[in-house]
């Protein structure tokens, strides 16, 4: 019963949602919107699991003085500060005015954005070092990868003089023609893979989401 009922629920809801797509009636659309609201709400409640785990892990680190436990204090401080400011110190639980709280916005603009943007920009260095290893022209395929990447990377370089515009045009062509063909094939592959996985879930072949007993 602990596994059969969930499997039955997946089957019934899965088949129902596939068929409702093909029913050209406004009630079908209403049901679609209704169930999408449902899973959105369930998903948000699931976030509490993640937040609780973060608090628990950080708290244990502090309590048992595990290595680098001091940083767990910073994590918890950031989390609770953001929640406190987001609710405007408890004044706006049920209105969105908490989102315009000065401190909430300042934390977003001057902590979250700089750190995340800098972390992404750091990838430029790591990608470059990975490229050095991957791009050595040892075979025809590696050479194709190397030349194509170099042309796209150098397309706005001002030092190429008269060949600059040709470089830019070639980069455009590479992005619009071979890249489009490759992306299109990959997107079709991903789509078919998603459909196959969804069918496996609905039919109960894929059950990993149920966990172990």
């Amino acid at each position, binding site marked *: 019963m602990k*596994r059969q*009922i*969930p499997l039955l629920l*997946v*089957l019934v*809801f*899965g088949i129902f*949602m596939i068929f409702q*797509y093909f029913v050209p009636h406004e009630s079908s659309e209403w049901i679609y919107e209704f169930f999408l*609201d449902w*899973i*959105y*709400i369930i998903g948000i*409640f699931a*976030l509490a*699991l993640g937040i609780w785990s*973060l608090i628990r892990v950080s708290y244990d680190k502090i309590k048992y003085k595990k290595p680098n436990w001091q940083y*767990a204090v*910073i*994590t918890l401080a*950031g*989390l609770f*500060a*953001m929640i406190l400011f*987001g609710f405007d110190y408890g004044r706006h639980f049920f209105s969105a005015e*908490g*989102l315009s709280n000065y401190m909430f916005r300042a*934390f977003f603009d*001057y*902590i979250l954005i*700089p*750190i*995340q943007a*800098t972390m992404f*920009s750091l990838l430029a260095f790591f990608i470059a070092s990975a490229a050095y290893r991957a791009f050595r022209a040892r075979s025809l395929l590696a050479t194709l*990868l190397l030349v*194509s*990447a170099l*042309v*796209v990377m150098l397309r*706005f370089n001002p030092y190429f003089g008269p060949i600059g515009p*040709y470089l830019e045009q070639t*980069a*455009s*062509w*590479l992005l*619009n*023609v*071979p*890249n489009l*063909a490759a*992306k*299109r*094939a990959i*997107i*079709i592959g991903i789509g078919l893979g998603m*459909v196959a996985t*969804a069918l496996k*879930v*609905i039919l109960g072949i894929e059950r990993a989401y149920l966990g172990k007993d």
Partner: protein
Amino acid sequence: MQEMSIGTFLWTTLGAFLTLCIFSFLYRDNPFYKLAEHLVVGVSAGYFVIILWHNGLQPNLFNRLNDGNFYLLWLNSAAPWYMIPALLGVMMWTRFSRKWSWISRWPIAMYMGIAAGVAVPLEMKNRVNLQIYSAMTDIDWGNFFGGSLINSASGLSQLIIFLGTIAALFYFFFSKEHTGVFKGLARFGIWILMVGFGASFGYTVMGRISLFVQRIQYVGDWTKVAWSGISGTYTLVWFITFGIFALLAVYEFIQFMARRKKEA
């Protein structure tokens, strides 16, 4: 000189300090990087809690139930059936109990069933059918070379896109052995894929470089504002911020020299 209030300047200083903290990882893992890393984990988790509360739960759940009565569990509201997903959401929390965790499978199962059911027709339409439809364009035979071999709108380019898509798809098709004509097709497919991956890679690298330049400009602008401060307070903040990193550099240098001496 850029006009900036002392409050904004201090917040910008914090942004610049955290930017430098993250960049310090280029040298090696260090306490400053760890500080910024742990701070962003907490702040982003808190940010998502607030965003999903105000933009998710509030309009989709609370606003629909707010005409009901709390003491009647909102069952007298105009849309009482919205209590069901709330109840299912609460059932997810039984995950914390070993004894009752099986109850959390029900909402997970409903979630998976609805999501999988929605995905089947939508994925077929949006990813598969639309891409196939877009691939089936007329080849412009009258303008086959388009005046240049690198003209994206020429008939030749359209033919390369069409054949390239089929060849790249065939490269991943293993039900037919890649021999004879099919070997050539699969080989053309991997060429197209490699050129495509290279172009995507180059594009991504340029995006990251732009972001890097933008971060350097941010620190540069902050430095400019700090040096042009009339009262000297801004410059003092600049010295303190850079002083911290200078001390770190000196400390690391001493450690490095001590390690070298020990190794020798």
